[in-house]
């Protein structure tokens, strides 16, 4: 404990499990360098040993520590208290749109199941025994693929999207963003079936461009733009097919 900390912060922390819960209030001493994750850690280490939460890398690389902070989804290890605190108050809740395991830790299974459903994995045509393909980093396809690639699967976008809340099947911004990146990867060979996967009932057309995903993504990715790309791609693919089947 540092003695420079005179002020204290009132922190409301959601406690509970999949059956429901309520808020507990804690007083945490303020420090000059303090993230939301540090607040949660301080509570667990000093005030309530039973508090559950998740983190791993503590520097914004693993996407394990996302929570709702004053109602907004954030990576807590990289969110400085001063940036989000209002009137010395903080409210910390588990990430929205995912089932809670306990307190601040959610079950991310459905998030990754949807990643799979959107065929969010590469399928190449060459093997480990072949040379690496020369690909210009400035080609438009590669630029599009790169723009969407640095996702840390934190599910912050997923929590910010109301369509996910309203439509439990919706694949969600992260999975669709990954699919778009892959569609632009010239080495990938699964484009056709992936396109069908993202055009289904729960796919890209469900998105209403609410853009919470793009506003809150901590890595400043833009799933809205990616999803718009998929809408165009699925539509033109559909029209082309119809045209072909008419004129075959």
């Amino acid at each position, binding site marked *: 404990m*540092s003695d420079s900390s005179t002020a204290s912060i009132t922190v409301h922390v959601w406690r509970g*499990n999949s059956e429901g819960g309520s808020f507990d209030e804690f007083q945490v001493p303020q*420090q*000059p*360098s*303090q*993230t939301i994750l*540090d607040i949660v850690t301080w509570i*667990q*280490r*000093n005030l*309530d*040993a*039973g*508090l559950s*939460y*998740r*983190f*791993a*890398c*503590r*520097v914004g*690389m*693993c*996407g*394990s520590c996302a929570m709702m902070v004053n109602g907004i989804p954030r990576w807590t*290890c990289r*969110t*400085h208290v001063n940036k989000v605190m209002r009137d010395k108050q903080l409210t910390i809740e588990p990430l929205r749109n995912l089932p809670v*395991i*306990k*307190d601040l*830790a959610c079950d991310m299974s459905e998030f*990754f199941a949807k*990643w*799979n459903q959107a065929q*969010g*994995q*590469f*399928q*190449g045509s*060459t*093997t*480990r*025994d*072949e040379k*690496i*393909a*020369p*690909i*210009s*980093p400035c080609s438009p396809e590669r630029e599009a693929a790169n723009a969407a*690639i*640095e*996702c*840390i*699967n934190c599910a912050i976008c997923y929590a910010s999207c109301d369509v996910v809340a309203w439509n439990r099947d919706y694949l969600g911004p992260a999975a669709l963003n*990954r699919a778009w990146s*892959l569609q632009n990867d010239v*080495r990938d060979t699964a484009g056709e079936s992936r396109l069908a996967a993202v055009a289904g009932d729960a796919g890209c057309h469900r998105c209403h461009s609410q853009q919470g995903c793009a506003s809150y993504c901590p890595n400043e990715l833009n799933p809205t733009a990616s999803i718009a790309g998929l809408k165009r791609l699925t539509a033109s693919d559909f029209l082309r097919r119809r045209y072909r089947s008419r004129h075959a």
Partner: protein
Amino acid sequence: MQFQTLKTDVLILGSGGAGLFAALHASRANPGLDITIAIKGLLGKCGCTRMVQGGYNVALSPGDSVERHFMDTISGGKWLPDQDMAMRLCETAVIRVQELENELGCFFDRNDDGSLHHKAFAGQTFDRTVHKGDLTGIEIISRLMEQVRALPLQMMEEHRALALLPSRDGDVLAGVLLVDMRSGEFRVVKAKTVLLATGGGPTMYRYHTPSGDKSMDGLAMSLRLGLGLRDMEMVQFHPTGLLAGRDTRMTGTVLEEGLRGAGGYLLDGQGERFMLNYDAEGERATRDIVSRAIYAEMRAGRTTSNGGVYIAMSHLGPDLVAAKFPGMVKRCADCGFDLAAGRVEVVPTAHYFMGGVVVTTDTRTAMPGLFVAGEDAGGAHGANRLGGNGVANSTVFGGIAGDEMAAQASLQNHWVEPDSEVIEAAMERSMLPFRQAAGSINSIRDRLLDLMWDDVGVLRDADGIKRAQVEMVALKTELQACGLADDNRVFNLSWHDWLNLSSLIEVSEVIAAAALSRENSRGAHYREDFPEVGSLDDSYFTIAHSDPEKVGQTVRVECQPVEFSIVKPGESLIH
């Protein structure tokens, strides 16, 4: 005590580069196998492979060669590496990077003509580090993770391995005891083959870089199984970890090497440059030299308010710094520091653990059925790991382990019964804190971290190490008596803090003993009372055994001569 029993052909512990590659390879080698992967966190979202910034060393550039990569690895490791392992590492890295690109979909940075970009990394005679910006690990682990998540394997996420279970006669490995962290229930997984890939991670130091889930569990479990651990004195420190106070988890996290390379200054508490007093290269000297210099400044009391030194970039022009290191500048800004225009406090920070289980080049151990790969395995790096060889090591040997385990498990059609006494004892041990009155686990942790930092850290001497050894025995006893304030086993982080600390203390004892036994200074190990490198021709490595059950100093350290199976000191493969 109650536990559930499961069975599998291949059991993998950990989902870093090593664990995920093993899963992928085992499944491709024999899709009919029943493969289970158990992880302390979420699959692919914990561990250090994700945190790799700099990149991956591979001899793919025209003009480079596997031999040159090998020679750099050997001389970087101060002639202590197991040469066969190092060679296998350098050879297989080529295939692995092609596999990552062609089969898994990683995309490493390119030159304008489309060819792979190779960047310079300290300690190497050729630019051979492939990378994806300065977030290489995210690219590698994300691509691996999405491939593995699509496989039909059993995922046991948030399952912590507690003990490796031998058969009753102790001849082979029969399975692993785990605890489901979400429910607090125990599970025994009987397996024909087990891969230990829990990734070391020297988090027993006040300042450290690895992810919070790593606490040397794998090495602690190996010690209990009676396995020998080599090079345990070899802890790599990164010179510039962020220093932001004791109560923040940001402290210790890496500020990248490139900052010094680009011309950043290190300043003492008074704002004076000091590196030139230590080395003609100044701030651009190698990791170990800079770490020692900073540590010496700190010990001399010339520190900043938090007890470190400053890194200053502003003389290069804040705009240029912001343009060149956007990720670092943003990360510092999120933490409340201005890297581009101001000064940021830094401190050396424990980064990587070279030591580990003694293995063969195909990841087998002295215990049949147990395989070890990645940071848990010793030998590939010797006294020092080159930047860029860490992720190469975990992905190369993880893949090899997957192939080997699949082959072995496919041939074996029976499971072995684990020793029920070992199961009972391990459950009993892990339940200990629930039977004690609540105590202050924070103070035990703080003392361990300070102890290792002060006495078994960047600079070491016999007095300090011995002091630490005495204190560690006390800490161990105190931990045994320290109970938890919350007795619900469901997602109980405080319980896992206790278990982490228990592993860390057990391994710390071994680090201290190995450090005391090596009376010379090589690579990451620096003895102030024995500053000489010692004869290269007579190079030896340490092997430690320990019985953590016993109280007192129970570690036994032997020395074994390095077998120069490929090159001898003074020779080279490059002509």
